[in-house]
């Protein structure tokens, strides 16, 4: 059995009076890619926002239960949220390049955490761009505004940027929803590469993508975890009828 990286215990999340995650228990192992599938409003994105505590910034959101990373509850008062977010990177559905040059986008995170040496920043930028397979496309124009990159390039830039702060976990919130098939396959192959060094959670509306890249898959419906298991098994022999209905396209 692989080492458990993230452990979610009796997690409930409310927005005001509305419960969006209902009593979820699950583990994510070190160095795996876990896909989360499910129709919209099923609490998938909320779960990611819980794991890096971006949910703290959502007015009216309430979290009960436990989320542990490496055995430590991240909701204790003693946890430094900024350090947590450094450790748990996130890639959003829409690429979010900051309005500055490519290089400055990549230097942003390390600078926040105290690295100012330009040589070192260039080093980090190159490594991370290579890891997200963007280096060859942008190496000659690092000073160009990041907003001028194509959508697929922007998304890989955001991935590279998430890597610059040396995270251990990377959360992907439908990273390919706005990308063409070629960009999508580039992002997917990058994810498989990243698996060696990171733990990945991938939310996707595309069940085929889940089947292509992930080791295990979890199916969420209306805030409940319906089923979680080996991707192959879940797609070929789902235990729950609702899972089966969803992956065969009967609803959702």
């Amino acid at each position, binding site marked *: 059995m692989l080492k458990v990286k993230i452990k979610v215990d009796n997690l409930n999340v409310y927005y005001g009076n509305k419960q969006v995650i209902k009593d979820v228990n699950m583990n994510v192992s070190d160095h795996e890619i876990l896909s989360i599938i499910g129709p919209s409003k099923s609490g998938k994105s909320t779960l990611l926002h819980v794991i*890096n505590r*971006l949910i703290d*910034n959502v007015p009216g959101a309430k979290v009960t239960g436990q989320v542990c990373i490496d055995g430590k509850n991240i909701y204790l008062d003693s946890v430094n949220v*900024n*350090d*947590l*977010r*450094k450790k748990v*990177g*996130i890639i*959003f559905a*829409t690429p*979010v*390049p*900051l*309005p*500055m040059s490519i290089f400055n986008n990549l230097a*942003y*995170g390390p*600078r*926040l*955490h105290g690295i100012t040496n330009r040589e070192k920043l260039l080093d980090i930028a190159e490594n991370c761009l290579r890891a997200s397979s963007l280096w060859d496309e942008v190496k000659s124009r690092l000073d160009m505004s990041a907003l001028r990159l194509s959508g697929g390039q922007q998304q890989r830039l*955001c991935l590279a*940027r*998430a890597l610059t*702060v040396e995270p251990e976990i990377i959360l992907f919130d439908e990273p390919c929803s706005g990308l063409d098939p070629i960009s999508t396959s580039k992002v997917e192959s990058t994810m498989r590469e990243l698996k060696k060094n990171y733990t990945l959670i991938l939310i996707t509306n595309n069940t085929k993508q889940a089947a292509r890249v992930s080791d295990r898959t979890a199916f969420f419906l209306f805030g409940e975890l319906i089923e979680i298991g080996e991707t192959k098994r879940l797609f070929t022999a789902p235990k729950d009828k609702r899972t089966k209905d969803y992956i065969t396209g009967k609803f959702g």
Partner: protein
Amino acid sequence: MNKFIETIIEKSIILIAFSTVAVLFLIAFFIFKEGIPFLAQYGLPGFLTGSTWLPGEDKFGILPMIIGSIYVTLGALIVGVPLGVGSAIFLVEFANKRIRNIIKPAIELLAGIPSVVYGFIGIMVLAPWVRINFGGSGLSILTASIVLGIMILPTIISITMDSLTALPSVYKEGSIALGATTWQTVIMVLLPGAKSGILAGIILGMGRAIGETMAVIMITGNAIRIPTSLYDSVRTMTSNIALEMGYALGIHRSALFANAVVLFGFIMILNTIAILIINKRSK
């Protein structure tokens, strides 16, 4: 019949819209008509760089007034920009809705106070304070800077707030997700992102400060001389026109119009810069 009425309404609205432009042109036309012949006769360089203004002796140099206007305006910016941008950041990024709902209307109210009231407060409260603490008459660049700085706050705050809220919320999310604090996000992402909007707000505030007359007449002391310290009295271009136009005749009157031409030029340049910046942002 309905269609006919529609057409009438439409045409009158167009007429009304264009009348604004017409008024602008009329103002420009009359100022220039009176001012340009004087400038042609007296010479623009002598008018701009002359440091003596003695209408009785036909000496018309407005350099002291130009410098006075620039100092007072810069002073207003030094006071108003940090306060204004700071308030805007606080209101957009840190204040909760309840606090914002109290402060925002208060700031808007600030814009509605007549300038003579600002001048009154300046002369009764601020000037004595400056006189006691820093010497001089109290009617000085410093006093005017503080009062004008407060007067331009509403402009700067509301435009800065607009450009901060206009930024996509994902910038903030993206930055926070990298482990940045709110403050780091403001300094490193939001302010640079809203830079052009903030600059436009500052320039509009500057236009307001340079054009302000009533409060300035009351608190600058109106001495015609090139100031050497912050506590000196100065006279601005606007005060010069307002103070003397009532009794000026002949060439003196034309000189004041020429002064207005220069002021007009200053404000046109500032507004053009502001418009260029705003257009560049929306591209």
